[in-house]
């Protein structure tokens, strides 16, 4: 179904500036995202990665510059999803969280239960379908958030530090799911400060530091040959601030 629709990619970001309370948090950021590759926004906390994700997804309006999707903004909105660091769990059942998202996407009522069931099976949550979502563990909640995003069949999935507050086991489960989405053709755009995770998941790296995009490179060449001092230090595991 997804493949029959024309792609909303590439995403072109040009001269993006974001200011809050007259403090400039992003300076002249520009890049282009193509379909296929897993893109990781890498950088220390407070670098502006999450801001960049939110601007691309349309949750924030840039002070200056442009975020443009192929085929226009309106069409693109329906074909992207975002998973947050702290998953937002509606006060409904696990399955209810998914059918709600499907309803918001205009999926006919009759189709919702099957699609919710498929998404839950994928995330290994079928046995919890009728439980209130808010009693799930942190890892289960994040898997539900991923399943909920997947159910709406996004072409692009934004992930905001999805494993930042999870233990290694839950992190592995979430990463496996992300790999699955990638294999199914969903464009992955993830922000993380976790170097090891970036090494595991990234095809290409956008290295962000202090509100500036310092490097944009294939993962391999970024990790082998960082071009800037900051990236060199970050890859070497030194503390940047």
């Amino acid at each position, binding site marked *: 179904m997804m493949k029959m629709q024309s792609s909303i990619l590439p995403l072109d970001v040009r001269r993006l500036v974001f200011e809050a309370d007259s403090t400039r948090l992003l300076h002249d950021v520009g890049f282009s995202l193509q379909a296929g590759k897993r893109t990781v926004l890498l950088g220390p906390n407070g670098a502006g990665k999450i801001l960049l994700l939110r601007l691309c*997804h*349309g*949750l924030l309006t840039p002070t200056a510059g442009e975020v443009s999707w192929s085929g226009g903004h309106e069409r693109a*909105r*329906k074909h992207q*999803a*975002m998973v*947050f660091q702290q998953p*937002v769990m*509606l*006060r*409904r059942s696990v399955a209810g969280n998914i059918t*709600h*998202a499907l*309803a*918001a*996407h205009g999926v006919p009522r009759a189709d919702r239960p099957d699609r919710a069931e498929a998404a839950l099976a994928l995330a290994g949550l079928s046995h919890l379908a009728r439980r*209130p979502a*808010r*009693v799930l563990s942190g890892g289960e909640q994040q898997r539900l958030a991923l399943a909920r995003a997947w159910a*709406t069949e996004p072409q692009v999935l934004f992930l905001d530090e999805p494993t930042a507050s999870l233990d290694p086991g839950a992190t592995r489960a979430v990463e496996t799911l992300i790999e699955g989405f990638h294999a199914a053709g969903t464009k992955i755009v993830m922000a993380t400060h976790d170097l090891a995770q970036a090494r595991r998941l990234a095809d290409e790296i956008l290295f962000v530091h202090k509100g500036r995009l310092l490097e944009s490179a294939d993962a391999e060449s970024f990790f082998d040959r960082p071009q800037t001092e900051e990236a060199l230090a970050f890859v070497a595991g030194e503390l940047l601030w």
Partner: protein
Amino acid sequence: METFVTAFSEAGALLVSFDADFLSIVGLSLRVSLTAVAIACLIGFPLGTLISLARFPGRGGAVLLLNTFMGMPPVVVGLIVFLLLSRAGPFGVLGLLFTPTAMIIAQTILVTPIVAALTRQTVEDLWAEYGEHLRSLDAGPLTTLSTLIVDARFSLTTAVLAGFGRAIAEVGAVMIIGGNIEHVTRVMTTAIALETSKGNLSTALGLGIVLLALALAVNAAVQLINGSAARRAALA
């Protein structure tokens, strides 16, 4: 102390006697207050949600006003409605003064700010949590509104109960507007005031006990509908 003992036996006697006068007083109390709360919810839920989500000039003032109106003295509301409905007032021609309808109007004015203000707070807190997810879903205004109201349902019952508590317990407005006319506008609180002023303290206290039992029954019913405490903890 003797008054209390007599009061309990009077209350018991009132409850088992099914005295027609007594039942009509209880019935009118419930009818007026429940109707007022229902109308207040119809106005207060959307109004509170609107104020919590909309950004307009003077919004801060609106919130301040709403919160202030929560504490409006019933006698003042009664007096204002009295002036509006009295023969010389703008709505005098309707001839509503000293009728249950007028009492419902007064209590609706008392309860609506409570429901609206508590709804605003509840929905605003929920929006802080849900906002990004709903915007990420590109949910339209209708979906957003219904999601917030449905998911706030357990918290909103508290607003409803607060409103009901206010309505069933107030005496100032119904006294002025209704006039405590026997068989027409006498409700539990005005009956208690009357019995007290007549010196029938144990009868007054007996009525008070029945009023409390009534409030208890309504709250228990709501709690039953809401489900177990564990369920609420998971969903609220």
